[in-house]
């Protein structure tokens, strides 16, 4: 394999990893607070893709992007209100089943409303501009994704550690009932968590789909599963863990395909899951050593 090919593959892996990391954060945050694996997260990501298609059809991109972020956030918070909040005192399993239900509802709703035909994802000016360095060729979004991911994660960690809301989130994740007794508005904190998770999913969706150009009702299911594995790998509940997990999966998958083992690229993700659960069930940055948010 020539150096150019190697670098090109690395670039692909890092870019994919960045998008995975953004989605994985959504899983990990919700788990940290609610101990809930939000299976609908991947489908929120897919819906964000459709929102963008319709938004870009009628507005310029600089209005469409914030609009999509807003609508996706509302969708995420709305799902929490309707499907999870009424089950707050129910056993954890019930909430999880509710999450799976929401996931199927969104997938089938999308099939019903937008048909199973793949739809073209609009181009945001600039993001698709192709850069050539020597033999390397990649669009701007490929370079931009990992950078933006790191910036967002930095901002998020600052928010959790240095704001009042962040403090509330940490408290709720440590002990939900005591936090309530201390006067923390649990519902507001949880909604806020869902808002951030969905917002990041929307950003991830824009980056991911700009690179892959089509959206169809099931385009959220596989990335969703993989990002869930990424979150578990990094230690579910830990944000740096989710980011590391996302990058490891993205790069590992690309490396396998590059080496000619594409048959096993999906299997890789799940083998990683099994190994980490056997060897280190709490993940790389397991919750015993770090904050749960």
């Amino acid at each position, binding site marked *: 394999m020539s150096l150019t090919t190697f670098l090109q593959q690395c670039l692909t892996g890092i870019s994919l990893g960045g998008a995975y990391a953004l989605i994985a954060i959504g899983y990990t945050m919700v788990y940290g607070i609610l101990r809930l694996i939000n299976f609908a997260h991947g489908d929120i990501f897919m819906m964000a893709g459709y929102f963008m298609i319709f938004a870009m059809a009628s507005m310029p991109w600089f209005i469409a992007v914030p609009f999509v972020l807003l609508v996706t956030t509302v969708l995420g918070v709305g799902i929490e209100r309707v499907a999870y909040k*009424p089950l707050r005192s129910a056993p954890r399993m019930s909430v999880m089943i509710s999450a799976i239900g929401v996931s199927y509802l969104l997938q089938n709703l999308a099939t019903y409303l937008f048909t199973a035909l793949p739809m073209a994802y609009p181009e945001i000016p600039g993001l698709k501009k192709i850069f050539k360095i020597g033999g390397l060729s990649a669009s701007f979004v490929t370079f931009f994704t990992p950078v933006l991911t790191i910036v967002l994660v930095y901002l998020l960690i600052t928010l959790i550690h240095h704001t009042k809301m962040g403090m509330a989130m940490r408290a709720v994740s440590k002990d939900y009932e005591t936090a309530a007794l201390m006067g923390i508005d649990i519902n507001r904190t949880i909604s806020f968590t869902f808002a951030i998770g969905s917002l990041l999913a929307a950003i991830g969706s824009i980056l991911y789909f700009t690179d892959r150009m089509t959206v169809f009702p099931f385009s959220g299911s596989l990335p969703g599963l993989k990002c869930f594995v990424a979150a578990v790998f990094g230690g579910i509940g830990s944000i740096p863990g989710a980011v590391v997990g996302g990058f490891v999966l993205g790069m590992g998958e690309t490396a396998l395909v590059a080496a000619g083992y*594409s048959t096993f690229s999906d299997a890789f993700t799940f083998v990683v899951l099994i190994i980490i659960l056997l060897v280190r069930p709490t993940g790389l940055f397991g919750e015993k050593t770090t904050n749960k948010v």
Partner: protein
Amino acid sequence: MNMKKIVALGMTAAMALNLAACGSSSSGSAASGAAASKSASGDKVIKIGVFEPTTGENGGGGFQEALGIRYANQTHKTVKIGDDEYTIELVEVDNKSDKTEAVNAANKLMGEKVSGVIGSYGSGVSIAAGQIFADAKVPAVGASCTNPQVTEGNDYYFRVCFLDPFQGTVMANYAMQNGYKTAAVLTQLGDDYSSGLGSFFKTAFTNLGGTIADEEQFQTNQTDFKAVLTNIKAANPDIIFAPSSITTAPLIIKQARELGITSLIAAGDTWENSTIIENAGDSAEGVVLSTFFDEAEPANDEAKSFIEGFKPYLKDNKQDEIIPAVSALGYDAYLALYNAIEAAQSTDGEKIKDALKDVKFDGVTGSISFDENGDAKKNMAFIKTIEKGQFKFLTTTTIDG
């Protein structure tokens, strides 16, 4: 309390939506069923199963094929058996592009006591369901399932399209004749159509003296092809042969061009679909594919009237007014069954099967009759290219044998 009511309302709404979704998927059969009983009160009804995916990976293509079948049902609504006028009623099931669901869907059709089955788009699901049709002694006519295994060893499966070995040979010939000497083959794992066609192309191409520079595979529902494409780029082939579904096609085309790959990209019949041009945009320019049908070159009078009648029908169904080849094949598959029922003078599956063997008629994709395997005797394929956002007819290729 109030909250509970809201939740209950929400759940009801969700369920209603679900029901609505179910309703729409079977609306085709419901509509035709209603029409049948209205026009033919007292008349007899013969049921034909439509076995197509309307959801899942091949949902888009399956829907287009089903449109051709529905249209055929409009133009050929009744059939005379003896002195009785039978109304043909379509029973549509969704096999969801999934081999397990395909078995369920096929069983459902058998439960409806259909006299014949049309479909499916996608060879894998057809192979999965073939045995069920054979066990129930119900003949099936495939429209666009091109893998040899669909009809092999199954007396009850027929098809109106050409086969993958033929299609692979056509594309290999085209490549060699036009000076493309090295090829990369990109196929989908576990997809009978894609891996089958890929390997037939490979065999034919090597036999003609070409070199296979690289072979790559990808997973179902994969959306990122950059890693495999980077490998292909390193191999620098003249032509990339990538038979795949219409969901993946635009992704492969766009990502290849983005990585700076300039090789010719070619594929088989599935790619003749306007959604590919729509989704891949400028990158799709120059793509070459083989197909069954060309609306600019009607093969006979049947084709002419089909083109005239089907375009408004597409418009009514809010589709692009470019006739997809699979719709034409769906129409032909229906005609094959129709002619066989008429010849058999019976609604019995066994008799219709025997009649199918001797059926000969002019379909919109050319003259159709079946060989001993149940495959249409076809030796001509259309080769098209994408130019200025349109499919443009390039040449026809005829291969003997």
